[in-house]
């Protein structure tokens, strides 16, 4: 190729690149929405605020939007992703650091399109991919609720994304690839409760944010794998579809009780990030919680336990033989509460072999529960389990977990347990 030809090609390449950048810039661009004076909280209809309060509980908003100092809705919870850490923002009506200057239109755009008032794209750690389907009426109620919270002056820590992901216009590319808003139409073949449950579960409650596997760019897997289990804050959120590992059926009644009390005596207590979810559901409208239970019991209707509840194996002798260290530790540290006839069993806690974590295809939840224990999820009455992170080292925790699976487990054998304990300690910090 002649020298002039190369020059011409380079010129065309530069022009093409500039055009691409321009098109991308136009696609990514969102205007700022003008700042408004903070609306007078007394002007909101109290019934609307109450509706919004219920929706905020169903959505578990406060979990990510609670400040480091403990103020609700003031932001600061770190969402750790493979690409860096995103902190929940301050959504109290403080004009300087919160959303006090946001008009209803700005709030609506953030929820529907994942765009901040200033026009910046929001990270999908904020689950606008779900909120996009929240109804106008519910958006208005949520806005009324948030604008009537105490305004807190608090700047959450700055996000620490790996370069170049701190450059927000790039998020427009993510949206092009993965953000496909499609309204949820009611299914006339299903009951009103089912439809209500689906609406809440797929939008505000954003259950798949934890319970769905994610792709390379952290997008939730859709379709058949939508509820096939995912990860959240170092915990495993088990499948809540036909692959539910539970050994007892999740009926509507059992789910309803679990949501409202943080405990299902046929399964387990709400642990890890699910604890706060049940804390909030316990304080939400009971009919909405029942609706959620209706929808998710339906999601798990094809799970093995829904068809047949198997007898629970107790291979005690075999497990002790294979994992003598684990057996000794279990006898000294765990049996006092977990063996049949122990105080906690008499108090009506689920028997250990029922515990869903022991039947999952990875050991993480079992490990985390031993390390962190259980905080009473809904009220001070429990269930509670002390944390063993400081009492037992990685090898000891691994030995107990190996023993437990050998004794009660029904899933695939867990390997590299000691490594997983070390990882769980690190990720769950």
């Amino acid at each position, binding site marked *: 190729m002649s020298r002039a030809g190369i020059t011409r090609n380079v010129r065309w390449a530069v022009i093409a690149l500039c055009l691409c950048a321009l098109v991308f810039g136009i696609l990514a661009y969102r205007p700022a929405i003008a700042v408004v004076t903070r609306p007078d909280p007394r002007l909101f209809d109290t019934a609307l605020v109450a509706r919004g309060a219920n929706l905020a509980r169903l959505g578990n908003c406060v979990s990510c939007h609670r*400040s*480091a*100092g*403990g*103020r609700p809705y*003031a932001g600061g919870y770190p969402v750790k992703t493979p690409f860096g850490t995103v902190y929940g923002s301050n959504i109290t009506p*403080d004009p*300087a650091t919160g959303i006090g200057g946001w008009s209803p239109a700005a709030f609506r755009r953030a929820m529907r399109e994942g765009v901040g008032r200033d026009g910046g794209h929001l990270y999908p750690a904020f689950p606008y991919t779900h909120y996009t389907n929240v109804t106008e009426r519910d958006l208005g109620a949520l806005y009324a609720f948030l604008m009537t919270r*105490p*305004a*807190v*002056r*608090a700047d959450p820590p700055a996000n620490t994304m790996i370069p170049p992901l701190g450059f927000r216009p790039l998020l427009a590319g993510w949206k092009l690839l993965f953000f496909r808003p499609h309204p949820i139409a009611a299914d006339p073949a299903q009951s009103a409760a089912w439809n209500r449950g689906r609406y809440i579960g797929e939008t505000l409650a954003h259950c798949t944010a934890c319970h769905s596997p994610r792709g390379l760019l952290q997008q939730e897997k859709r379709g058949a794998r939508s509820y096939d289990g995912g990860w959240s804050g170092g915990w495993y959120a088990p499948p809540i579809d036909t692959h539910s590992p539970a050994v007892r059926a999740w009926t509507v009644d059992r789910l309803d009780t679990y949501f409202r009390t943080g405990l299902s005596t046929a399964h387990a207590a709400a642990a890890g990030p699910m604890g706060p979810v049940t804390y909030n559901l316990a304080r939400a409208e009971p009919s909405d919680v029942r609706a959620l239970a209706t929808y998710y019991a339906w999601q798990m209707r094809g799970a093995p336990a829904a068809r047949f509840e198997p007898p629970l194996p107790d291979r005690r002798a075999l497990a002790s033989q294979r994992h003598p260290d684990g057996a*000794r*530790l279990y*006898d*000294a*540290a765990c049996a*006092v*509460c977990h063996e049949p006839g122990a*105080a*906690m069993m008499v108090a009506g806690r689920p028997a250990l072999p029922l515990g869903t974590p022991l039947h999952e295809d990875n050991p993480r939840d079992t490990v985390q529960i031993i390390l962190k224990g259980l905080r009473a999820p809904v009220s001070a009455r429990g269930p*509670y*389990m*002390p*944390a*063993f992170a*400081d*009492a*037992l*080292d990685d090898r*000891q925790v691994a030995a107990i977990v190996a023993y437990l699976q050998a004794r009660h487990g029904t899933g695939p054998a867990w390997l590299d347990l000691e490594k997983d304990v070390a990882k769980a300690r690190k990720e769950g910090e």
Partner: protein
Amino acid sequence: MIDVSVNGTAARVDVDPATPLLYVLRDDLGLHAAKFGCGLGQCGACTVLLDDRPVFSCLIPVGAVGTRKVTTVEGLGTAAKPGDVQRAFLHEQAAQCGYCIPGMIARAEGLLRKTVTPTEDEMRAAMAPSLCRCGTHMRILRAVRRAAMMRGGGVVDAAEPVT
């Protein structure tokens, strides 16, 4: 025979390795500060330090302690010469019946070994696993705040201002 290091002293005890550390401390070593409360890790009366971390000694088999160093309240000071956390508890008169106090002191000591400037939330979270039936909580919290100051720090209220 099992070797354990308690309050800086090496001890050798002839017990089953499954024996709870608490029983060894009380029955074999004569250290009666840590108390038996529930035996379930729910009340915190048995709390001692294991390498600077507060743990329920009723739920730890002595065989699992290994080379980690055990510290009980006896290791933090004596009646004649109380340590700083003990002095803080005395100064605030933070005990009523006193049964939970050795656990509370061990827990406070663990917190202050981690940081002498905990937030109010961190302090409450650190103390929460220990129960007090007498309702002395406010005095206990005052004692922890005082102890933090005695170590050159202090408990800070980190809650952001409401505007």
